[in-house]
């Protein structure tokens, strides 16, 4: 057979498309998916169910759940899974800022063991020494990575970690008896860095970037005052630009008595390279489902491991995990007698199985491996950055000619002006080649943005394939712009007619509403 020449651009790709009905349409009355253990005979004879249930609470409304046999349930949801482009089946570069990296399968096996899944959170500490040891040690490693003095794993996502940090700030100033109502952040930090402190009653002050993309120092200087409770920032920000003067920022806040809170949801470029404490931060958090490889699970379960300096430990939510002199681990509810403690952020002890996976990931790398992760993540990004910038239609604002950390926010503004093809169009067309592509949080401060983050887990060939595909699609925008504008063509469905989604008279938020609107 002769060699078959094939391109690294997946022109023949088509995503699985099953045209699957909504699950209610699959119901066939009488079918059973699973049987429940029967009530024991003696017990049933002892009681009349009608005596156990008050009349006014007994269900009379028919429960119209689907009735489906087991294989049909499995088939339906398997098909929906196939219609989802998880990281396991694609080159994850296109979800910038999300740090979607390879999640090792062995770590999933640890989490699926009954020594993890079948633990009740209120079991006596003596019976959960294994998971407590894991969490205790992971806390210690987080301290080593950040320079902080104590971590809590209660916050179960990045945004909840930001809310937890805002709560710690609130506790701190309540304790000091100071009324401070302002929190400063930047436009390129995550929207939750503004939204979560706002929930806690703080007024949000934004610092705009200067011409280099750094938060404007002069503007910052005039914003910081005795009213400043805290400074919430990501560094690098979404642009991948690292604020070289960060220490001057934190010092300024400290001079005025405020606290500095570091959004390290994505710390993928910084492990073993630089530490939160050394830059003057009082607290920080790591998303274990980002930097520490635990899978995103469509959006959780997750963990925003939150660490603080010694001074702030007493405000942490309870309990923390500690070790006794005899070597046993325990949940410590008595580490603080401060009446200003945050109390509790999330039920029980956070998402322990995520901590287990993150621990296993750290142990598969060691200190040197963590350093390798960050160096390669930054290498991959700068390799990609250079290749992207070699194209005249792609640009990236700020610090020309300088390196970025782990991600870059590009712009194709000039390209859009030339072709009329927008970043949204390119996004949909990239799907036809099996690739994600993310523009930016809202509003778009960088016009026609693309945010890409290769992490350490794609190969050089993967990165090349992503860039080649993107350039191929951009070229299509010149030659056949309609094809790009009407994309996707090989994804699961065609372009949505979106009007109904914002129309309260017509939106369909459940099958019940759909049936009602259509008299089904």
């Amino acid at each position, binding site marked *: 057979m002769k060699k078959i020449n094939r391109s690294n651009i997946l022109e023949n790709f088509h995503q699985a498309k099953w045209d699957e009905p909504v*699950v209610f349409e699959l119901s066939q009355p009488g079918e059973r998916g699973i049987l429940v253990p029967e009530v024991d005979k003696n017990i049933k004879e002892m009681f009349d169910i009608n005596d156990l249930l008050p009349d*006014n609470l007994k269900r009379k409304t028919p429960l119209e759940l689907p009735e489906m046999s087991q294989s049909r349930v499995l088939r339906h949801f*398997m098909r929906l899974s196939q219609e989802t482009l998880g990281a396991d089946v694609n080159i994850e570069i296109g979800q910038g800022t999300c740090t979607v990296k390879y999640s090792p399968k062995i770590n999933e096996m640890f989490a699926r063991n009954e020594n993890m899944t*079948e633990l009740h959170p209120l079991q006596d500490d003596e019976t959960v020494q294994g998971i407590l040891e894991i969490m205790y040690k992971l806390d210690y490693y987080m301290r080593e990575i950040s320079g902080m003095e104590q971590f809590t794993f209660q916050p179960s996502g990045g945004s909840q970690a930001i809310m937890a940090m805002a709560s710690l700030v609130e506790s701190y100033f309540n304790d000091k008896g100071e009324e401070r109502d302002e929190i400063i952040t930047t436009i390129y930090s995550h929207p939750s860095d503004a939204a979560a402190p706002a929930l806690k009653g703080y007024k949000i002050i934004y610092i705009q970037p200067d011409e280099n993309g750094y938060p404007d120092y002069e503007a910052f200087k005039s914003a910081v005052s005795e009213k400043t409770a805290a400074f919430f920032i990501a560094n690098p920000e979404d642009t991948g630009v690292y604020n070289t003067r960060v220490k001057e920022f934190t010092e300024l806040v400290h001079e005025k008595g405020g606290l500095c809170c570091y959004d390290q949801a994505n710390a993928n470029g910084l492990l073993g390279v630089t530490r939160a404490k050394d830059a003057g931060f009082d607290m920080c958090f790591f998303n274990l489902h980002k930097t520490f490889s635990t899978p995103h699970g469509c959006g959780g379960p997750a963990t925003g491991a939150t660490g603080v300096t010694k001074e702030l430990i007493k405000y942490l939510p309870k309990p923390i995990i500690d070790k006794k002199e005899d070597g046993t681990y325990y949940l410590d509810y008595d580490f603080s007698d401060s009446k200003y403690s945050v109390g509790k952020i999330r039920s029980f002890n956070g998402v322990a199985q995520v901590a287990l996976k993150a621990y296993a990931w750290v142990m598969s790398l060691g*200190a040197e491996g963590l350093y390798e992760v960050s160096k390669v993540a930054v290498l991959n990004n700068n390799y990609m950055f250079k290749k992207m910038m070699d194209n005249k239609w792609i640009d990236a604002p700020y610090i020309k000619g*300088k390196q970025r950390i782990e991600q870059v926010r590009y712009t194709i503004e000039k390209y859009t002006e030339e072709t009329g093809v927008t970043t949204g169009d390119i996004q949909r067309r990239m799907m036809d080649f099996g690739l994600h592509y993310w523009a930016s949080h809202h509003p778009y401060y960088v016009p026609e943005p693309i945010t890409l983050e290769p992490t350490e887990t794609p190969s050089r060939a993967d990165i090349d394939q992503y860039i080649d595909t993107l350039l191929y699609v951009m070229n299509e925008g010149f030659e056949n712009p309609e094809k790009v504008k009407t994309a996707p063509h090989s994804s699961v469905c065609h372009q949505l007619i979106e009007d109904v989604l914002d129309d309260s008279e017509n939106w369909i938020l*459940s099958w019940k509403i759909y049936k009602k609107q259509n008299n089904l």
Partner: protein
Amino acid sequence: MEKRGFKNHPYIPNSDLKIQNEMLKEIGLSSLEELHELIPEELIFKGKMDIPDAYKSEFELKKHIEKIMKRNENCNDNLNFLGAGCWQHYVPAICDEIVNRGEFLTAYGGESYNDFGRFQVFFEYQSLVAELVNMEVVNVPTMDWPQAAATSIRMAYRMTNRKKVLISEVISEEKFEIIRNYCSPHIEIVKVKFDEKSGLIDLNDLKNNIDENVAAFYFENPTYLGHLETQTDEISKIVHDNKSELIVGVDPSSLGILESPTEYGADIICGDLQPLGVHMNYGGGQAGFMATRNEEKYVMEFPSRLFGMAPTVKEGEYGFGDVAYDRTSFGHHREHGKEYVGTQTALWGIAAGVYLTIMGPKGMKELGEKIIYNSNFAKAELNKIEGVNTSLMNNMSFKEIVVTYENTDMTVKEINKKLRKHNIFGGKDLTNEFPMLGKSAMFSFTEVHSEENIIELKNALNKVLNESGEA
């Protein structure tokens, strides 16, 4: 200079030195140390992190982790009666199969085209829970029940522009703490008393506390202590006469046999999805849900994403997308959106969707019946033990029962420690949480328990309490 890093690591393709050098050359550098040029020298970490050397092979890593995790004693090898918000239910194999599908497990923020299955499965999850609670709108899962309750309360606060919220005092202490923190500093929370004889809400105390500043009343049914609150119509009337919102927390595993709070006037329903196909995971299985009617004033107050159906340009094709996205802090309004949005517990929504599908209406009914039979059987049997009283409160119970120890010098903790020698995890200690109940513990019974298990518990408890010399 010593070469740093971990070369040829299986998770890091470009940790191969040859490739690394080629890539470095491409960007005009000669070593990895030349990266991170923007970080000032004074901030470069020059120490060595005290983190052990890697377990280099997957095999060694597996041995290491398994050795540690074997130090746990799990609820399959022991007889567990702990509940209190996290319950041991049977998780159908298909739930595990689906949530462990790599496509779902590793998906995140793709669009509704290439993450189509994720969008449809959440629409279905919303629809299935909506059916269970007989509401029309359900959000994607939030952190846990306390978070769902806290957000429900904040929704009511925004809708009514009133700053006080009443909460039944039959609530878990930690749930109250989470709500308190989340609602601070805007909302004043006042607890409404319950009747210690019946376990029911003290309607007089509710009436005395409700006024024009009250945004909402929150109570749970079944309650935290397992009682069924029967004065639902009276409560609903008191709350609605005051133009306040009625928020009811509910255990979804009860809804095959119990009427949804919608039927007695709940405006917002919340609860935990963990009973619906999610393993306990030492508390990592919690996931909150909220449900309302399809009224704009409610829908526009949800902070989290809501998935809706939409047509596509192709006739006969279903599409799914974000409903009223600009409500959220991901929209253009950022901190002026509703609360904040971010990663929560999406995967458990998929588990709950699969669970409700596989159970169907009959399965949910049988589940509820098995639980209510078991809990009442246990209540009757344990009451026969000398020194044990399970009828301190005379109301009907679902899943949880309060066991009061009389005439013993042992603490609940000591009793539980002795029960462990019988491979039993005894009930949650209520001594500090509900001091008015005396020396009490809360035992939980679900469909995983058999008559034999309950008798085993009874015999063990009897030995622990009444046989001297019992270790």
